[in-house]
């Protein structure tokens, strides 16, 4: 492959195009914020030269759960709330495979809240993209953990009485390796965040504000556009106290961008038996346990 022309052709062949990322026909509502996230994701993959077979998306249940079918990739669309344990199992079995998790706010912050806490603690190298529309879409309009206090829904007749869940502050408190917030209404910026998350080594949470056009009449595209602002270039995401402060901003002004980042060893880096070779590439067959049985005599 010394010939530059041949080399170029080789790259062309192995380079994915947007066509390679054309999946099933989405069953989302017209105008759904998810379409924009899908576009940002596919473009990010193509621009990064990642091919569909080189990663797996684990998703749960909810409108976000359908995401992997609408792009093209290895897919495990599992149960509601359980994306992160499945993603953790996959990553531990094959840490050379890129593992992404896609979930909704009900999925990841409600049903799967405990798993989120512990995935962050483990620092498993999984990229989590949360489609946060502050409402339950698939079940038609009940409050999610991120629905704002006081909002009246079909199942919260007196309004939401619980405090709004703040995923970013929680993640920073757990010293999450990478914490970011994106907005579906700004595809270019979101694409940048997705790329940064993919390039980051360690557990990455990207909370994506995503308007639900059918059931959330409060947090609309307009509502977000009036409030969302990008973190300035001189913002230092390594400063944990500053990150806490930024993560608490909500209401009149909502920051988007990489809020917090820290480098620490991933779970899989610390497991001796997979240090040199992913588990899935190690020898298969009967283990000779003669040595184990000797201990019983």
């Amino acid at each position, binding site marked *: 492959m010394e010939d530059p022309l041949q080399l170029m052709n080789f790259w062309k062949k192995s380079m994915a195009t947007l066509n390679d990322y054309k999946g099933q026909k989405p069953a989302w509502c017209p105008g759904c914020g998810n379409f924009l996230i899908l576009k940002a994701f596919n473009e990010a993959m193509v621009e990064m030269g990642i091919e569909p077979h080189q990663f797996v998306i684990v998703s749960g249940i909810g409108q976000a759960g359908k995401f992997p079918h609408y792009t093209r990739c290895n897919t495990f669309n599992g149960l509601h709330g359980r994306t992160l344990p499945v993603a953790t199992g996959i990553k531990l079995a094959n840490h050379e495979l890129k593992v992404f998790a896609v979930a909704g706010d009900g999925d990841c912050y409600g049903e799967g809240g405990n798993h989120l806490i512990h995935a962050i603690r483990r620092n498993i190298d999984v990229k989590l993209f949360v489609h946060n529309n502050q409402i339950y879409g698939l079940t038609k309009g009940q409050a999610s953990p991120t629905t704002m206090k006081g909002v009246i829904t079909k199942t919260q007749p007196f309004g939401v009485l619980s405090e709004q869940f703040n995923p970013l502050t929680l993640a920073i408190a757990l010293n999450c390796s990478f914490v970011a917030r994106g907005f579906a209404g700004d595809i270019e910026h979101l694409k940048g965040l997705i790329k940064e998350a993919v390039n980051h080594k360690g557990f990455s949470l990207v909370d994506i504000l995503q308007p639900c056009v059918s059931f959330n009449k409060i947090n609309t595209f307009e509502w977000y556009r009036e409030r969302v602002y990008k973190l300035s270039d001189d913002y230092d995401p390594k400063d944990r106290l500053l990150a806490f402060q930024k993560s608490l901003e909500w209401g009149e002004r909502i920051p988007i961008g990489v809020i917090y980042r820290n480098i620490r060893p991933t779970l899989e880096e610390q497991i001796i*038996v997979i240090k040199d070779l992913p*588990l899935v590439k190690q*020898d298969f067959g*009967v283990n000779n346990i*003669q040595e184990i049985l000797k201990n019983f*005599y």
Partner: protein
Amino acid sequence: MDYTIKIGGEAGQGIQTIGDTLAHIFTKAGYHVFANQDYESRIRGGHNFYQIRVSHKPVIASRSSVHILVALDRESITQHERELSFDGHVLYDSQMINEKFDKPYFLNVPLLELAQKYGGSKIMANTVAIGAVLGMLGMNPDIMYQTIENNFKKKGEAVIKANIECSKAGYEFAKNECLKCSFMLSQFDKPKMLITGNEAIGAGAIASGLKFYSAYPMTPSTGIFNFVADHAKEYGIVVEQAEDEISAINMVIGASFAGVRAMTGTSGGGFSLMVEGISLSAMTETPIVIALAQRPGPATGLPTRTEQADLLFALYAGHGEFPKVIFAPGCPEQAFYLTNKAFDLAEKYQITAIILTDQYLADSQWSYEGFDLGKIKYIDYRVREEKLKEIENYKRHAFTETGISEFAVPGQSKHLVVTDSDEHDEEGHIIEDSLTRIKMVEKRLFKKMPLIKKEISPPLIYGEKNPEIVLICWGSMFGIVKELIDELIEKYKVAMIHFSEIYPFSENQNWIELIKKAKKVINIEQNATNQFAKLIKMETGIDMENHINRFDGRPFTVDELLEKVYGYIK
């Protein structure tokens, strides 16, 4: 020769150390041993015991009469003195329990004093007790010294020497003072192995190429977790303690999807949390193995005790209709080979396989000549590396003759591996149409189930060929009922039918003839509602009338069960 030694005391007094060491000394000397434990859900205090039966012939259950009772507390004497055999003795230390007994069969051994004198610490009273028991038995102490040396290898020469001195002191004291002891034990045969149910499952799993184990600790399954973790480094196994059992089973499913053999273990409460995961394994056709060590429920129940009350729960665990395999080994040896079979069938048919045990089997120790590693089966059913290149057009859930679709390892080729907990098409994408749904149910259930049934071995029939009395049992009842048959067979035409591969039922139904021809059929289960009898009725239509149940969390002993069986046949 058939002796039972019982060590009783509070949790934290070292009952397990004494019991475990003695049991190993006996198997090293070539004896057959059966040991079981009774303990409370606490780390200190209460009343616990460890019971060892040692014999020159195979023993696979406990007997009621005790030959040597080692009483580390007063409660042991109160509770167990009446269990002594006609030649039985109590070994105690009057200083330890603040009471002196003048009865001739009480041997007062100054355990604390000797430990202080010869070891420099009262902690070694346990070692003195070990020596004293062997002194009472009149056994050559050489194996004891070797065992102690081995046990304390990591603690250095000084500790080894002190413990050997202590054991020697106990040995000499008992040998000289127990004038009425009429026991005789000498080197018998070549050493045997001594293994628990939990250890056998762990060893079976590792032999079967286990690569990933995730669990949340729960008695009585934790022994498997500990065992696998202990060997993780040498055998290249990733072990991860999950935040809850839901996470554990989902991690196992993830690891299996990624291409490695994966397993979890739990007890009833944790299994309840895993149920949705079993359903997920079924829909995504992802092979997993679950060890379910039962304890009495409902809810937290009796955490350290035994019961067989989760059979029907395991059978129905998971919403929807799908195949699964349930094995209930009767002893550690069966547990070892059935764990291998569980992995093989799970991988071959891409299903969940459950190994159903209970506290009694999980913790009891059995002696064997050895396990045959040649019998371990390993076929890699996955499509990985080079084999992937032969596939042109890959569909994870492709329709096939057998219902089994090729399972490619994701990321090792251009083929995309797609699966879904929603009903899906051959490629793994979500569908709603009725035709695909019907074909998928046919694939997962109707096509696979008859093939799985062919793999299942019939129950074990033991005893008389044409029996008039048939005892039916399953799982951990094996040893107790088998010994019962050995007792009864001299007087009666009796046989046992023991089920260890309990679901689905084997195609071979010869055992049904035996039941139909017998005059008396008695079903024995460690639960309140005859769950296995219900399963038999469901599968065969046969109704059983006579039942023996126990559901107080304690295992049957042969003698108690004998009385109950006599109640039906005399």
